[in-house]
């Protein structure tokens, strides 16, 4: 049988083509591979499910062994967030013209260039910054690159990193930066914000997150910007864009580089596969020069009034310069950028404000209800967005009780600290249900 995925495996056409290239068999074409390297047995793989129907049955059985967050009530966040994904986002990123395209030129792929240009442009409005990159892999990578950009920009090799970041992100930063940038971790204050810090002229950057790993909204951004700038360093702020309809964008309090993950803007949780990173700066040539990512710009065509697009300052990149480029560029997460653009266009300024207000209010409501239910809620005087911690005698014991109620109660940060995530998807009833179960679990 000719496999449906391989048209020229059909014996007749194969013979024709072999004749055309003057080969007796495909073996001839492999002549350069020494015999010693040849695998002279079939690969040891499971028997194929050649019919689509059998493949579907097999996959369906595997998927049936997952329980997803539409089947239980989940309060899990910690870097991957449950938000409503408008159907139009899925419709657009499912269009095969976008899904199966890659790296065509600005003509036959005009649509891709425009869609991504619009994404970066909408992010720019949200961030109040003029330069935003074509997405990188995720918020971890964006943070690492942003700090590295600051180091290159300042010519320095030390950075102050907020202690209120996740262990995973810290692991990534250590791996990505640790070999040539000295990372100094700032303390966390009793209010859950970054604590008192000092820097000197050896520092390239202060790196801050808001809301931070505890869901606390940092309020001293302006102060930290002044501190950084006084030392000739940059302020790098990682902010979730879904908060920026209500929270001040980093640029407004002096941040030089903003970064973060855009998974909240229209990507499903995807078992962690929906992440994508953004990096933004002001339009300053020296800073722009430090982006490793592609930047798409608008450009005129030979027809007056017509727009085309192209790469801005391509000769920064590793595509152009190999190891002399800035870090590297390659396939990252463009489709998620397009999707985030669709999301922002659907939401508009009103939607972004409202979703921010709803999340703020429900987060606070959940904090209050869980405190009433007997949990200790640290940092309760601070502003929280979407996440907060509770302290309980035993996370494991509490989570087990919640499981019995069909609730995934949160992410266990340590034995006694649970991180609870509340978004617009969690109705008042859902939160009340959690509170009741927590009360039972703590009783």
């Amino acid at each position, binding site marked *: 049988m000719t496999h449906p*995925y391989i048209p020229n495996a059909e014996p007749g*056409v*194969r013979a024709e083509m072999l004749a055309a*290239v003057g080969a007796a068999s495909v073996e001839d074409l492999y002549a*350069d*591979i020494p015999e*010693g*390297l040849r*695998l002279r047995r079939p*690969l040891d*793989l499971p028997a*194929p499910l*050649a019919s689509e129907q059998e*493949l579907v049955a097999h996959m369906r059985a595997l998927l049936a062994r*997952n*329980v*997803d*967050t539409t089947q239980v009530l989940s309060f899990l966040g910690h870097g991957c967030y449950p938000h409503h994904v*408008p159907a139009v986002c899925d419709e657009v990123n499912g269009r095969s*013209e*976008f899904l199966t395209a*890659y*790296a*065509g*030129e600005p003509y*036959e*792929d005009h*649509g*891709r260039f425009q869609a991504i*240009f619009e994404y970066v*442009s909408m992010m720019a*409005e949200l961030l*109040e910054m003029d*330069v935003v990159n074509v997405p990188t*892999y995720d918020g971890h*990578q964006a943070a690492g690159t942003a700090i590295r950009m600051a180091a290159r920009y300042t010519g320095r090799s030390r950075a102050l990193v907020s202690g209120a970041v996740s262990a995973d992100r810290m692991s990534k930063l*250590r791996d990505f930066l640790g070999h040539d940038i000295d990372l100094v971790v700032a303390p966390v204050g009793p209010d859950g914000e970054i604590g008192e810090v000092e820097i000197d002229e050896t520092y390239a950057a202060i790196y801050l997150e808001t809301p931070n790993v505890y869901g606390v909204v940092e309020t001293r951004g302006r102060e930290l910007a002044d501190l950084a700038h006084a030392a000739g360093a940059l302020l790098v702020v990682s902010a979730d864009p879904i908060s920026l309809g209500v929270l001040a964008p980093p640029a*407004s309090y002096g941040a030089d580089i903003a970064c973060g993950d855009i998974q909240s803007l229209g990507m499903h*949780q995807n078992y*962690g596969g929906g992440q994508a990173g953004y990096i933004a700066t002001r339009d300053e040539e020296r800073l722009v020069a430090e982006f490793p990512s592609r930047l*798409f*710009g608008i*450009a*005129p065509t030979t027809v007056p009034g*017509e727009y085309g697009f192209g790469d801005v*300052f391509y000769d920064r990149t590793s595509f152009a310069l*190999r190891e002399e480029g800035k*870090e590297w*560029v390659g*396939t990252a997460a463009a489709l998620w950028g397009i999707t985030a653009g669709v999301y922002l*266009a659907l*939401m508009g300024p*009103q939607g*972004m404000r409202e979703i921010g*207000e*709803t999340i703020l209010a*429900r987060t606070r*409501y959940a904090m209050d209800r869980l405190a009433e239910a007997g949990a200790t809620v640290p940092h309760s005087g601070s502003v929280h967005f979407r996440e907060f911690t509770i302290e309980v005698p035993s996370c494991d014991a509490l989570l087990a009780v919640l499981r019995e109620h069909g609730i*995934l109660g949160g992410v266990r940060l340590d034995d006694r600290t649970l991180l609870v995530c509340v978004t617009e998807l969690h*109705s008042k009833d859902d939160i009340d249900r959690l509170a009741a179960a927590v009360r039972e679990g703590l009783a």
Partner: protein
Amino acid sequence: WDEPIIFEQSRPGRRGVAVPAAGVPAVELPASVRRAEPPRLPEMSQLHVLRHYVRLSQENLGVDQAIAVGQGTCTMKYSPKVNDRFVNDPRIAELHPLQPEDTVQGVLEIYWRLERMLAEISGMHRVSLQPASGSAAIYANVAMIRAYHASRGEAEQRDQVITTMFSHPSNAACAKAAGYEVITLLPDENGYPDIEALRAAAGPRTAALLITNPEDTGIFNPRIEEFVRIVHEAGGLACYDQANANGLLGVTRAADAGFDLCHFNLHKTFSTPHACGGPAAGASCVSEALAPFLPSPTVEFDGEGYRLDDDRPLSVGKMRPFLGVTPNVVRAYAWIMALGADGLREVAETAVLNNNYLMRKVLDIPGAGAHWDRNRLEQVRYSWQGLFEETGVHSEEIGVRAADFGVHYWTSHHPFLVPEPFTLEPTESYSKEDLDEYATILAHVADEARRDPEFVKGAPYNQTIHKIDPASLDDPKQWSPTWRAYTRKHLT
């Protein structure tokens, strides 16, 4: 479509989707954190947002639309639609990555089984599916190389990485980003990487050789085992860039040539869609000696269930958030399951046959050439140097004009060691008729270039837009990487 920029379609008060009200008391924000001005996002009804993007999508060409053999090195193969169905199922799409292990046994099994299959395909011991892309997998491999040498006290000493000019630029770039000095081997007069240069470069400072094979030229380096041996003898590791493994499945394996590490791009060889440039997915495959350094967590199977192991003291840690780009892991798994061992072998053989067939057709076009008269596997880096000398038309211009006929190519990576390059990789997905059509179009455009070079230089004529003036894109005063910048610089 003559589709305006989305901001030009905005009208205050409209909206595309509604948000539920809080239903609980509002929170008053302190001024220090409150946004002062609403963001100037577009305001449009739902149909209008949709229509805008649908129209833009129609101005784009994917594998499902066009004969996408022109993105050589990219392995633009068919990504079966059925695999998208699995990914869109809520039992993948709506899984949170930190759910309890007992609620994600299905997805963990997919990770585990795909790891085992890729281990068999590469001959390696363990595989990490965490890297977000091919380049990220190269970086992960470099990170493991560093960790390996560090574990032996040689981190400081081994500060050089060797690569070749026709290895993908990310090999050089990732090594550099990881702090290594990069030594790049040029091809010798036969088109192979220069083995004498390697001998000269390899030594006590060598951390690793990062090498693609076949290189972006499509030429397989028959001395690859010797390359590995030279590096091993110098105490370095050998790391195989198998981003383009499409011609080799079931034919030869990284481990068999002695490599310590290799990586695959799931979005190339294993058919996950390219998605306009990601999300992609990489797989880092390592020998037993390197396994302790793999990113964390790993998926482990105890004979009954699957669990995540995060307690791995030598691990390089997190390469990205969570376990990996799950949708692509699921698709790659399904793709291999649909083909099996014989099918993968047939993929490889057909990809190579298709490439050689197309090469015959392309080399028959006057003005087209390919350096080095060598066999090619799954792709060829061609050159229009002959045509350029005759007509003054650049390869890029030929490609743009070809787009007027519904096909295209890209001009590959800098530096253009092959002058006026274009790289074609037909994969196994295209039919003989597709290849014939593609070659016919190239021949037609080459003929046009010969008859009327200015006409070809003026292309495109049959696209959404006309020829772009790129001057502003490299001028800081004019460049406009966002509409916000454009408005400020050009509209006010």
